């Protein structure tokens, strides 16, 4: 498949994304809408609020239980059967074990405190040893029981097919049903929160069709609801002691998509004392109950809040792809000279003169990393030159995959230079995965073989200085190149030449003149120019009018 065709396929796939929005009318000052989130289960609420909210102004959102919701959580006959069977089975299996475990725990704790006491009392060694033996016996008994119970509970989960889901579903249904029966169908959807805590991330205006509330817009508040909080009805009364499954206080249940919810908002004014602390006598004072209307959360096919992301990701990608295609047609694209690259020949030449090997490190990251790829690219070139000069090349590796690729690249380099016989496969070897044993081993090789030139390309961590300083101590010419900004200072201080950050990639493009690298580098330059333009334009806008934030809004992720 040619690249053009792949590009077309990509565009087609993207165009297939149907975009749709959905909103439900609500009272004038309140706006309700579904918002895109992964499960399509969130509801966005924004409303007008007089005055500026403070920490003391509380609010909560409630929703009305309806048949649709109840129906969703209702267990089918079969599910019910599965759950009951599994519970019965579990309590049958676990029942006696639980008692045994708690008595074993008590015995173990006793034995442990006896042992501790004996040590504190400095009893004779033989007695302490006896107590220690007892403790370990008790400990093993307890562990065995504990393991058995855990295994049974795991089996329970397997038997009920995602057993926990089924349990939660049953508990939720019980709760909703209870709420329906009691007539108090309004249940809490969002815990009480201070009014001042609502809002969106940062300030932005309407862009790409997304209308989020503005924080500067004093009276408009913005909030999303995505779950209902279901208190466990059995917490206090029935602590599931027959099955040993632990209990919990409340469960957040995600809103179910495609069900119509009726929402209500309660606002609470500031209480005299701490409103959140009933013990202080205050308690929140209910100020107002606003009916918000109904809304149906729907999963969107496209998350509109990610529009600017899509635009930028596509834009940058297309620029880069376009320049790669251009570079294939015309590989003579201009790239500025990179200081440090001239030194490569000098270093290799010196190694030949001294009859000593050249050492090349590809960094400590895996093959999937860009810096490693760049390092390997440069290695191919360096290998060719080394073959010309008839020196030895040593390449220790931290990653076995990198090692195999490095072998192939060097072999190719030697072959291109017309000296395939000089290639020695076991000079390119794997040392170890561990960072510091790798460093230790590499430093050992440096001290023993005293290479005349050392190339430190790719990504390095803390070992950078250890490697570079050992190399400097052996008197080798060192050329470093890394995009690990934490380590760059050390290379700058200890090495003869250093390629800083992206210069590493540029160097690999510069040396290989490969259209892919050249084009990609050019594309990145254009993207960079774009970013610089945005920075400059926004700065100019600010000078004219501090309120104009077009470019800032454009790049602020939602």
């Amino acid at each position: 498949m040619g690249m053009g065709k792949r590009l077309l396929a990509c565009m087609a796939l993207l165009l297939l994304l149907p975009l749709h929005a959905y909103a439900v009318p609500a009272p004038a000052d309140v706006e309700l809408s579904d918002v895109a989130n992964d499960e399509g289960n969130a509801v966005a609420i924004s409303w007008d609020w007089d005055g500026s909210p403070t920490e003391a102004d509380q609010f909560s959102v409630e929703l009305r239980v309806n048949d649709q919701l109840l129906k969703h959580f209702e267990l089918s006959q079969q599910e019910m059967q599965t759950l009951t069977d599994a519970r019965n089975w579990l309590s049958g299996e676990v029942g006696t074990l639980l008692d045994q475990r708690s008595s074993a725990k008590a015995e173990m704790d006793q034995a442990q405190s006896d042992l501790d006491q004996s040590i504190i009392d400095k009893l004779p060694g033989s007695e302490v040893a006896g107590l220690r033996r007892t403790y370990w016996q008790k400990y093993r008994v307890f562990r065995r029981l504990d393991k058995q119970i855990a295994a049974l509970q795991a089996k329970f989960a397997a038997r009920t097919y995602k057993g926990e889901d089924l349990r939660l579903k049953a508990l939720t249904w019980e709760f909703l049903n209870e709420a329906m029966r009691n007539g108090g169908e309004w249940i809490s959807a969002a815990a009480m929160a201070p009014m001042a805590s609502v809002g969106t991330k940062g300030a932005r205006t309407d862009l790409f069709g997304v209308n989020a509330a503005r924080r500067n817009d004093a009276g408009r508040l913005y909030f999303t609801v995505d779950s209902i909080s279901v208190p466990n009805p059995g917490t206090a009364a029935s602590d599931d002691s027959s099955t040993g499954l632990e209990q919990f206080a409340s469960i957040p249940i995600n809103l179910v998509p495609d069900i119509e919810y009726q929402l209500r908002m309660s606002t609470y004014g500031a209480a005299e004392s701490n409103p959140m602390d009933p013990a202080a006598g205050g308690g929140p004072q209910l100020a107002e109950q606003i009916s918000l209307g109904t809304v149906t959360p729907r999963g969107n096919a496209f998350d509109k809040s990610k529009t600017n992301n899509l635009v930028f990701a596509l834009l940058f990608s297309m620029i880069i792809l376009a320049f790669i295609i251009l570079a294939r047609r015309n590989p003579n694209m201009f790239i500025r000279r990179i200081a440090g690259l001239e030194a490569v020949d000098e270093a290799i030449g010196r190694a030949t003169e001294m009859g000593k090997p050249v050492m090349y490190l590809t960094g400590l990251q895996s093959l999937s990393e860009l810096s490693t790829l760049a390092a390997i690219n440069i290695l191919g070139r360096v290998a060719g030159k080394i073959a010309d000069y008839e020196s030895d090349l040593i390449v220790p590796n931290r990653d076995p995959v990198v090692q195999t690729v490095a072998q192939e690249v060097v072999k190719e380099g030697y072959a291109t230079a017309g000296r395939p016989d000089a290639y020695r496969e076991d000079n390119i070897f794997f040392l170890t995965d561990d960072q510091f044993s790798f460093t230790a081993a590499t430093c050992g090789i440096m001290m023993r073989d005293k290479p005349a030139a050392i190339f430190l390309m790719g990504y390095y961590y803390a070992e950078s200085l250890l490697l570079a300083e050992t190399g400097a101590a052996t008197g080798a010419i060192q050329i470093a190149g890394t995009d690990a900004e934490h380590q760059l200072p050390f290379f700058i201080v200890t090495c003869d030449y250093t390629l800083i950050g992206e210069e590493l990639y540029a160097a690999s493009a510069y040396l290989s003149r490969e259209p892919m690298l050249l084009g990609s580098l050019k594309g990145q330059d254009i993207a960079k120019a774009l970013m610089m333009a945005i920075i400059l334009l926004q700065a100019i806008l600010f000078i004219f009018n501090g309120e104009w934030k077009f470019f800032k809004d454009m790049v602020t992720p939602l």
Partner: protein
Amino acid sequence: MIFLKRQLPIIIAFVAGIMMWIRYYIPSEVSTNLEDGYLEWVRIIVGFAAILGILSLLQHHMLKIRMKRPGFAFSYVTIAAFALMMFAGFAPFNFPGFAEKNMETGSLFNWLYEFTFIPMQATMFSVLAFFIASAAFRAFRARSMEATLLLVAAIIMMVGRVPIGDLISNATPTFMMFGNEYHFIDFEEWTGWLLNVPNAAAKRGILLGVYLSQIAISIRIIFGIERTYMGGGD
């Protein structure tokens, strides 16, 4: 065969890449499940990739012993230590005097970890302190404007971020400006500014470039232009 070796991997990479990319913009259960499943698969694949390293290491040391290369005797140490660790981790029985489960506190495995691995790794790392001191002494010269800047910034950071910096700052006389009291030398203020303004800004400039590179490499991989990760050969 050529299709299997060349085209198929590229097609897999393309389909997987595009799917995972588009998935990000689609809020639905399918997309979440896709992400979840993919990430779990990756975790398993990466787990196996780690074993590859061990195989290569053993291969390397076995070869060293067989060829009787210089220092081959030490390879026995490596292999013996490896075997011991494997034995401690995988042995199906309890070691007398150690905890019963092989990863628990007090097990032989943990004992080996605590008393051999930790000290050796930590020491290897701490040797850096000596090297950094000697490197600073030997190589840190105000040769050029760049080197001087690096030097001055480093010195301010070195003094300013340890307790002695506070001592020095508090010992210097103060002056009044805009109604606030300032010390003539205030390392906390200086280092804070250095880190938050020039340092953060320069790093941001570098990072923006790095992110673009990451985007570029992702795009190249997805569209099958970048194939180095697959290895050479046919």
